[in-house]
């Protein structure tokens, strides 16, 4: 039964705001608001209706044994059944999103693919994207769990050389610097992924370098992304005393050629020595460095 009628203004005033919302949410007819009245729904698929019917029966049985001290629900049994169905679907999607975050099985990946449009558009999942934009594990001490930096060497038409660094310094508030750091870390993470990430690793360098080279009125430049070794705990004293320098590595380097309509990258090094925090099992703090 198609539902197009709205609530009249008198009834709008009489009902509570959340009940009014409930009506709008589920496109109920206004007669559904009367106690004991029937509620009209938009046409529904037969299996869905069967599921709701079963849920309702289940809930009716449950309510027969309800604890008399529990405050009575405000909603009708039928509405609760519909909402329960939505809640169940949403929670299942969430559960899939959470459990596929690390090392998903084929089944989990398939299920995640099923819910992906819902989860991704609402930003409820961190799985199945091209790079880990939110590392809830904070660090796995892997070669991409580092802070990277990028630079673009460019020579303008007057022949003056310039070097543009990312993230830029001196931004306020600090979250702005952090955003640029996130961007640069994404570049480094994709580059550190090696050949598996080949289709993605040039996307950001191309966009960033193309923009900077064009801004300087130049036709070519060099883009580099670097990472810095993290110091082992037992070497920190040496680092602080200046006896040991933190080693830097270039994880991505490319020549950039800019024409009015396109940007081309000529990758110099696909993957140079990526600064490893640890190559194989991480060392325990206090253990000697090999």
């Amino acid at each position, binding site marked *: 039964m198609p539902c197009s009628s709205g609530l009249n203004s008198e009834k709008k005033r009489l009902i*509570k*705001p*959340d009940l009014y*919302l*409930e009506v709008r949410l589920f496109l109920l007819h206004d007669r559904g608001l009367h106690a004991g009245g029937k509620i009209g729904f938009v046409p529904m698929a037969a299996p869905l209706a069967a599921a709701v019917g079963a849920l309702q029966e289940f*809930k009716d*049985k*449950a309510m027969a*044994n*309800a*604890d008399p001290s*529990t405050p009575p*629900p*405000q909603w009708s049994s039928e509405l*609760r059944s519909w*909402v*329960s169905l939505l*809640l169940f679907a949403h929670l299942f999607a*969430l*559960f899939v999103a*959470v459990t596929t*975050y690390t090392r998903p099985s084929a089944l989990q990946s398939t299920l995640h693919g099923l819910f*992906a449009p819902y989860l*991704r*558009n*609402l*930003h*409820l999942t*961190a799985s199945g994207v091209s790079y880990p*934009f*939110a590392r*809830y*594990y*904070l*660090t796995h*001490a*892997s070669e991409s*769990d580092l*802070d990277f*930096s990028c630079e673009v060497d460019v020579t303008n038409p007057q022949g003056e050389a310039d070097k543009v660094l990312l993230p830029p310094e001196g931004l306020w508030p600090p*979250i*702005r610097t952090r*955003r*640029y750091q996130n*961007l640069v870390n994404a570049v480094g993470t994709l580059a550190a992924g090696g050949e598996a990430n080949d*289709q*993605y690793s040039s996307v*950001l360098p191309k*966009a*960033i370098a193309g*923009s900077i080279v*064009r801004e300087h009125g130049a036709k070519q430049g060099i883009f580099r992304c670097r990472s810095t070794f993290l110091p082992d*705990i037992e070497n*920190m*004293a040496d680092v602080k005393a200046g006896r040991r320098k933190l080693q830097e590595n270039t994880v991505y380097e490319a020549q950039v050629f800019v024409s009015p309509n396109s940007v081309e990258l000529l990758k110099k090094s696909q993957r140079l020595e990526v600064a490893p*925090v640890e190559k194989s099992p*991480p060392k*325990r*703090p*206090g253990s000697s460095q090999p």
Partner: protein
Amino acid sequence: MMQAISDYFARLTAAIGQGWTRFWFTPSDPATLSVIRLLTGLVVIYLHATMLPDLVPLFGSGGLLPATEIAPLDAESFSYLNYLSTPGELWTIHLIGLAVLILFTAGFWTLPTGVLSLAVLLSDIHRAPMLTARAEPVAVLVLFYLWFAPCGQTLSLQSLLRRRRQTPGQSAAASAGDALSTLATISTRLIQIHLALLVAMMGLSKLASEAWWNGSGVWWLISRPESQLIDLTWLSETPKLIDAWTHLVVLFELAFPLLIWIPLARPLVLAAAALAWTSLAILTGEIPFALMLAIASLAFVSPRIVRACCARAPATVRPAAESLARAHG
């Protein structure tokens, strides 16, 4: 025998159904949600407003991140910012978004402004997810569950204006009348469950790395020069402290999703959460992330406590809080 099995399953289904109904559909006071709305709104305003200076350098025509060029990284998610490139368009739409967020935070028409606030935040994220970190997903989850709840009933300019239009007697009656809401319960429960799942995911995903088993996880965070909030590398002199910190982070993140549901343990777990989120801010330098976790954790705080705090609030808030407290006995 068959009768006994049948009886058992009948009792089981009845108990589950009863529990489900009580858990999700018992009307509750939306006071806590109002506080969550206010605080989340402030964080989201901060996240949105601080993008203003970088809008054109990043998203403008000739900017660092043209929508078409970065599309291969995340082409499936919608953002209205993908269709804007001139400085005028970007600034205008961004300022309108800011106005929407301010209205929602202030508690004006929280249903439409809540939906629009969610759209604003999601568009900011989806335009360039590589600029975001961990705070944004937590803010999204809270906003997603707030918009349909009556989170503007208290601590809002709308409620203030409503009270000014009413006589004292009417005000008390109206406040008592609209205090309990099923949508408030559903919203609160969803925030609680989602937060518990998120923290469980944080804990379980750490177990995939040896660094969190051997005690070095915290060290790899505090030794990152660009991310640290304060320099804690002097802790290298006390490696056992770093070990303990690492193990406590994992222990807490695994225990929180379980213990938070036990009413008797909840105050202690929330106190531990306050410490844990503060330590996360120190370790990662991500203050908005820690703040959002703390704000989402408020969903586990009883509305009575919130009311009690409101009763000590300035005079503009007190009358409504007191009338609601009376309504709840």
